[in-house]
Every structure is written in structure tokens, then in C-alpha cells.
């Protein structure tokens, strides 16, 4: 029983925290924010690794897990790289104007 209780606590706190954090993000950065959260959602890779790497995994498990790792890694890698690529473009005046 206690497991779900803990899970609920963590979910409740995280959801509140998420709301407060996101509401503060400058509209200037909403697009990079979307790709950052894409990258973070690649955390599903944790579940995928557990499925794929398990000792007693059936072939079905391994295949599905393998696909899941591939998909999450794609998200992870492209998410972070794109976010960084976008953010690199945001510059303050200074270097620009003489």
C-alpha cells in the first residue's frame, strides 16, 4: 500500500512544482522550453533499460525494450542538442551594435 502512497506524494508535489516553474518561464523561451521538456520526457529510457536488460527477459520483452530504448535515445539526444542550438542563438545586444 505504502508504495502508491509515496508515488502519489511525489506526483502531487512534482505537479505543483511543474506548474509554478513553467508559469515563470519567459515567453521568449517557450519554443526551447518545449524541446527541453521533450528531452526530459526521454527519461522513459530508464524503464526501457530495466525491461531490456533484465536477466529473464523474453524475446518479446527484449524487442519491445530495444525499440523503446532507441526511441527514447533519439528524443534524448535530439532534444538536448536542439534546445542548445536554439538557445545559442539568443543573444543580448552588445556584440551586435557598434
Amino acid at each position: 500500500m505504502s508504495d502508491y502512497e509515496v508515488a502519489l506524494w511525489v506526483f502531487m508535489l512534482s505537479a505543483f512544482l511543474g506548474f509554478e516553474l513553467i508559469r515563470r518561464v519567459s515567453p521568449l523561451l517557450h519554443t526551447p522550453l518545449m524541446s527541453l521538456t521533450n528531452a526530459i520526457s526521454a527519461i522513459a529510457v530508464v524503464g526501457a533499460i530495466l525491461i531490456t536488460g533484465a536477466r529473464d527477459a523474453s524475446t518479446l520483452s527484449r524487442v519491445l525494450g530495444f525499440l523503446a530504448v532507441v526511441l527514447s535515445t533519439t528524443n534524448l539526444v535530439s532534444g538536448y542538442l536542439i534546445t542548445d542550438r536554439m538557445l545559442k542563438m539568443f543573444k543580448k545586444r552588445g556584440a551586435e551594435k557598434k
Partner: protein
Amino acid sequence: MMHSIFPAMYILAAASFILAIKWMNSPSTARRGVIVGEIGMLLAVIGTLLRFEVVNYEWIFVAFFVGSAIGVPIAYYMPMTAVPQRTAFSHACGALAAALIGTAEYYRQLPHGVVMIALVLEILLGFLTFTASMMAYGKLQEILPTRPITYPGQNFVNLGVLALAAGCGIALILSPEKMWLFPIFAALSLLFGVLLIIPIGGADMPTVIALLNSYAGLSASAMGFAFNNKLLITAGALDGSSGFILAVIMCRAMNRSFSNVLFGAFGTVQAGAQKETVARPVRSASPEEAAEILDSARKVVIIPGYGMAVAQAQHKLRELHDILSKRGIDVCFAIHPVAGRMPGHMNVLMAEADVPYDRLIEMDEINPEFPRTDVALIVGANDVVNPAARLSKNSPIAGMPILNAYEAQTVMVIKRSMSPGFAGIENDLYYMEKTLMLFGDAKSFVASIVKELNAVAAGN
């Protein structure tokens, strides 16, 4: 000993994700945020690989390799205008991964009770988000028809499919050993995702994508409940709230409700209203005339919109901005929260063209400036400057906050024709006394203006 290190790594990973999002609140800390987010992901992956349950590494490393081989090129070769599609694609990947993991877990142990509830939610949300995101991708990439497709009784069909899927899910929760039900459940979930998107127009996709982001996050959280993994729960919840809030922001900026976006079939209805219009006279002008007007102004506000993105005119606009400021003219960009096709779209494009971000002014800040503005130069924007939003009560965009370009001394509009924008309605701004239409592709028209101004400068 080892046992107490992994939980610590997960906690640190969660804290990193939180900091990563927190630091996105300002451009000066945002890149630090990305680095912290990467560290968090590294901690999470290493912490998981080292767990004693994980013994089989070959498949995993092959998968890492394949995933990176797909992800890196996407990241480097994707043009900035394709961000909405990329986002949809990424939700599809993430949601499919969650659904596949859920499926594998189901077949592995046929779990009961709360774990099964969590798995069913994970799989339902995962599969429907997968197909819905692929559909959204298709519409944005214009592989699929972008206009909403409706038929009588559509909502009934959709709700029916959803109810069936939910029914199968509940049956599976009650008796998980009914394995024949599982493929049906999965298929219905996939089908519902498709049906959900069919009646929604291409231009509403950004809002839908943000909502799908929220579902994908919830699916990851559900996975966390099933695996009893707090890191998954936290990351999923952060992701879910992010998508939800962005969707709310978009809806509010369009003055529409969620249900109107999801079931309103926006973009079909208004077509009727258009035919009644009589041809009204407009004034148009050449690049030379436009250049002259700009040159004699003291304060110019440039308003980019979706057309600017389509034409990729951001670099030319940057040149225009530089030339005008060099001549002592006060130039800035006015950014409407839903200009373009995703939140922050214009900001990213202007940043790509090296426009410093303190020249990008938000709506609430720039609106009081318009009466003091000599020229409002509208580049491929339409709905976001449509005064009907403010003045006409039964317009489909009534109540949507707009940029008050109509208050400027002179208004110049670069677009290719008189055809309407996303909302499919006429724009009275174009017919005003003080408005000059500059017909042409945004990029080439701005280029001509720039050439003209350079010629004048050389002449001096």
C-alpha cells in the same frame, strides 16, 4: 553501500531536471539549464545501468547507438522552421516508447491491482498520443490534408471508440489474465488517437501538440507508478504540467477554450462568411515607396507573423533593422504570443537571425507605444493584428488580444495576396486609409527594400 548510491543518483537527477526548467526563465541562465538537464539524464541512465537487475548490456548499447545515429542528424539538420513538426515527432517517439514498455511489462508479469491500473493508463495514453502525434506531424508537414475533416455524428464515433478502449482497459484491470483483450485494447487506443486529430485543422495543431505533450508526460508518470520509480513520476509530472500550461497560454491568447480547439473544427465554418465580401479598394506600394517612407520615419515597429516564418525572411529583416538603426531610426520587433504556429516561434526565428533579444518586445509592452509609432511594418502577420478581434463581437477571433498596429501613423503590410490568415477571416486593417499593401513574398520584398535603402545610403 551500492544500494544507497542509486537512489541518491535518482534524487540528484530529479533535482537537475527541476533546476533545468527553473533556469529556463531567463535567456541568461537557460544554457546552464540545458547542461544541468544533461547531467541529470546522465545520472539517471548510469544509475539505471548499474542496477543489479540489469545484466544484459549488448542490446542496450546497440540501441543507444542507433538512437543517437537518428537523433544527432535530426538535431543538426532540422531547419528552425520545422520545430513544430519535430516536436510532434518527438512526442510520438516518447509516447510509443512508454506504450511499448507498458506492453512488455504487461506480458512479463500480468500484474494486478494498482500496478495494472497504472499500466493500463500508461498504455492508453501512450498509444493514443503516438498516433495522434503522428497525425499532427502529417498535418504540419502537409503530408496529410490540413483542413479539418468532419462528418455527422463524428463526436459520437470518437467518444464511442474511447469508451470501448476504456472498457477494455477496465476489463483488463479486473482480470489481467484475459490476454486476448490486450491487442484489442491497444488497437482501440491507437485508433482513437487518429480519430481525435481528423476533425482538427492544421493550424490548431500547436495547441493540440502541447496537449499531447501533457498526455505523454502523464504516461511517463503512470509508468513511474507501475515501476515504483519516483524519478519517472517527477519527470513525467514536470513534462505534463509544461504541456498543459503552454496549451492554456495558447488558448488564452486566442481567446478560445480547450473544447473549442478539440471539437470546434476551426477553419471550416468561417469559410462561408468570406464569399459575401465585396471587392473593396486597397492602396498598394512598391519597394521604392516603402523604403522612402521607412527612411523618413523616426520610430518603426516591425510585426512578424507566420508568413515571415514561411518565407524565411528573418535574416533579411535583421538587415533591414540594422540599416534603419544605423540611420538613427528607432526600430524594434513586436512579438505577439501566438504569432506564427507555436509559442515563442517568432522569438526563435529572430534569434536565429542574430537579432538581440532585448529588441523583441512583448505585446503588453509595445501596445502603448503604437500611437507614437510612425510606421508599423507587418511582415506576414494577419490575425494577430486584426482589429476585428477588438471591435467586432461576433468575429471568430473576438476577444483575442491583438497588437494595436492600427494605431500607428502609417501601416505597411507585406503579404502575397489579399487571402486571409489562419482564422480564415477578412482583415479590415488592410482597407484603412493609412494602410499600404506591399504585395509579394516576404523575403524578396524585404530584400528589395533593403537594396533600395542601401542605394539611397550610397547616394548620400
